[in-house]
């Protein structure tokens, strides 16, 4: 077999690179209908016609003059790692803007194959694109594909392999920048051609980048300091232009594209409003935007509870029955009492206590993924811009925060789409306040016990508190330590589309799998550890109130007294929740023997055993609410802390984030309890 071929997938954000990558490699990375879902490069291997191919999915970029971290990653990869061929995914329904990047990719000098994606959408809108003519005009292969339906992939790979193997002659046409710029390019080329470290770069590309004053290239050429002096040679005719060179270069690229497109594309009058535009006039309306958003979020939680709980009761029953029959069976074969307890109370109780909430998680993710995939989430950034700008952030910062409703880890990584470092850090610090999926079991449990019939509104209120606290915290950060102007908000809006079963299904399946995996690993391990520390002390096996766990809880519990839940049980659950927020629930399950309680509950059809247990340690509906608020806001799990360290690259900020979130949670939860008590709840 011949040497493997490395193919880089490059293209605009939201052009379907990840969909193509998944279709090629069989991977299941998450895709979404907004720009910036992929912020890291990903690799996958597969075989095509007995060629081993390594595909590299790069984050989407509009250009190769990088402004944000994700664009830098994409460009550095193509420039420095030299993939054999670049597949440039072009959204056929948005071809003019997409080809701008193609022009730059072609300029880089690496062979480019254009995959004309979303041909189906373009056709539905009445755009007729002659891909053969386009290929001729550009001088690069153009292959029409529909990545979502895996159409045209074989032809695409054939073209890519043929180029690498030299079976197709690769001879791209160049953008003609006009006499003045072309003269400058020649002069600059002459000026830099003897530099030592530029062998792997295309000389014309370097020259254009110098004229565009690209910092990374000026750095590479050692021209940053003496740029002004040396560039004066090149920049002699600046006065001849009313604009700067960058504007002229961008303008020439676009003119080149429009002149090509006028010959190869037939499309209806662009003044006609698309359906997307009409929907947007309502959804993004000044008065209706926010109420529609709030109402949709309420629907999401209503759906999560009312539909999810039907299944929750079923699974709860199974685990109860499993615990009971396992207990009887283990007793029957003469297993020691402690081991029986470890298995039934520790493992089945602890893991089962978390697993019963799987239906709620699944329904939350179904609802969220429908909103994402339809394109609505991108509009939320638009709707929130006015509010976000008041706190000194742009609407774009709201997108990673929304991702936080799923899991805080991708939310923190998603802040890479923000251009400004200060904005990015501020967003990373507040994103954990957005309630992640792992906190949901805590709410379902407590809301179900203490607020029966009102779970939807109670949990919705928690999510809203999370948003409000995040916004206020961001405001304080932006007014104090991260002072600065609001960064300009620039974002492309994807068109609405009808969510497909495939995308929603695979997204939900991935999340459910992740949840099950956590239940089988970290929660499983945590349940065992919790069982041990609750059943042993330093002199051997003990009653629970004398155990190590209880002792630990008792040391910490006074901190939570003013919050209304000063019991060692609550304190211990919260501390163990730092491993993963679901563990709060498994700890409670082990402590209160939910294994048994659940079986009783299954018979009685509710969770009264658990209510009694919680009432016994002093939980009232008010302190339960305070407990939920604390769970919502306090220090996120270790996975988040680790991601925060990696992304901020600072122990100082990581430590700060851990500490201040604990303090914020304590203060707000205390206020809820104290004010609630005062006004007589």
């Amino acid at each position, binding site marked *: 077999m011949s040497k493997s071929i490395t193919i880089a997938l490059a293209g605009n954000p939201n052009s379907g690179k990840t969909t193509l990558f998944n279709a090629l490699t069989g991977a299941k990375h998450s895709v979404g209908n907004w720009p910036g879902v992929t912020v890291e490069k990903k690799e996958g291997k597969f075989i095509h016609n007995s060629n081993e191919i390594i595909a590299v999915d790069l984050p989407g970029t*509009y250009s190769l003059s990088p402004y944000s971290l994700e664009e830098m990653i994409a460009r550095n990869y193509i420039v420095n790692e030299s993939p054999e061929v670049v597949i440039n995914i072009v959204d056929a329904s948005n071809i003019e803007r997409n080809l701008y990047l193609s022009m730059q990719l072609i300029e880089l000098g690496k062979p480019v194959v254009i995959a004309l994606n979303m041909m189906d959408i373009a056709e539905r809108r009445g755009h007729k694109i002659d891909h053969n003519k386009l290929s001729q005009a550009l001088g690069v292969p153009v292959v029409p594909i529909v990545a979502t339906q895996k159409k045209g992939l074989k032809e695409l790979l054939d073209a890519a392999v043929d180029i690498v193997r030299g079976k197709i002659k690769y001879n791209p046409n160049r953008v003609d920048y006009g006499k003045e710029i072309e003269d400058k390019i020649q002069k600059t080329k002459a000026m830099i051609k003897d530099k030592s470290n530029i062998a792997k770069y295309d000389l014309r590309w370097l020259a254009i980048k110098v004229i565009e*004053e690209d910092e990374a290239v000026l750095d590479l050429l050692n021209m940053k300091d003496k740029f002004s002096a040396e560039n004066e040679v090149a920049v002699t005719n600046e006065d001849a232009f009313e604009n700067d060179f960058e504007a002229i270069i*961008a303008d020439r690229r676009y003119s080149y594209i429009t002149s090509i497109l006028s010959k190869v594309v037939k499309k209806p009058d*662009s003044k006609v409003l698309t359906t997307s*535009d009409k929907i*947007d006039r309502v959804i993004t309306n000044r008065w209706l935007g926010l109420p529609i958003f709030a109402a949709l979020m309420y629907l999401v939680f209503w759906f999560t509870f009312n539909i999810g709980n039907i299944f929750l009761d079923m699974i709860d029953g199974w685990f109860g029955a499993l615990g009971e029959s396992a207990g009887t069976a283990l007793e029957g074969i003469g297993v020691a009492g402690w081991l029986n307890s470890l298995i039934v109370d520790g493992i089945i109780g602890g893991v089962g206590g978390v697993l019963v909430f799987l239906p709620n998680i699944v329904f939350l993710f179904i609802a969220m993924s429908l909103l994402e995939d339809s394109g609505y989430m991108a509009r939320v950034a638009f709707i929130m811009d006015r509010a976000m700008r008041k706190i000194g952030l742009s609407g774009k910062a709201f997108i990673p925060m929304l991702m936080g409703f799923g899991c805080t880890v991708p939310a923190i990584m998603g802040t890479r789409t923000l251009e400004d470092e200060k904005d990015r850090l501020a967003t990373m610090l507040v994103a954990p306040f957005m309630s992640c999926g792992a906190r949901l079991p805590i709410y379902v449990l407590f809301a179900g016990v203490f607020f029966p019939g009102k779970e939807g509104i109670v949990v919705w209120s928690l999510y809203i508190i999370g948003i409000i606290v995040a916004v206020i915290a961001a405001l304080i950060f932006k007014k104090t330590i991260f002072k600065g102007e609001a960064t300009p908000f620039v974002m492309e809006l*994807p068109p609405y589309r009808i969510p497909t079963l495939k995308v929603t299904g695979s997204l939900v399946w991935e999340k459910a799998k992740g949840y099950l995996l956590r239940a089988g690993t970290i929660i499983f391990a945590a349940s065992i550890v919790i069982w041990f520390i609750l059943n042993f002390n330093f002199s051997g096996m003990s009653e629970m109130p004398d155990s190590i766990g209880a002792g630990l809880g008792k040391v910490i519990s006074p901190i939570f007294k003013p919050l209304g839940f000063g019991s060692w049980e609550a304190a211990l659950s919260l501390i163990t929740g730092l491993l993963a927020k679901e563990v709060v629930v498994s700890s409670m399950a082990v402590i209160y023997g939910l294994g048994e309680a659940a079986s009783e509950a299954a018979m009685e059809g509710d969770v009264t055993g658990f209510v009694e247990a919680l009432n016994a340690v002093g939980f009232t509906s008010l302190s339960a609410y305070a407990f939920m608020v604390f769970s919502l806001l306090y220090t996120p799990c270790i996975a988040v802390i680790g991601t925060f360290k990696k992304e901020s690259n600072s122990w100082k900020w990581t430590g700060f984030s851990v500490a201040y979130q604990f303090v914020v949670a304590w203060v707000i939860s205390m206020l809820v309890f104290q004010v609630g008590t005062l006004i007589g709840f």
Partner: protein
Amino acid sequence: MPLAMTGIGQEVIIKAINWGPKMKKRLQDMGLTPGVKISVISNDTNGAFILNVRGSRLVLGGVVTQQILVDAV
């Protein structure tokens, strides 16, 4: 006039972008080059705009639209 002053449905031509080189470059890369004709799909007074730029839908925050000068068609 600044783009911020235009209304829904209006068509305008980009004249100049008064912003630092980085942001200006980014906007140009996204298709807002001088002379290009754009139309306003949605605008929220003091808030963000949705524009039709070369067939794509671009959201620009209020801060940005005040710094982009346009001519009426």
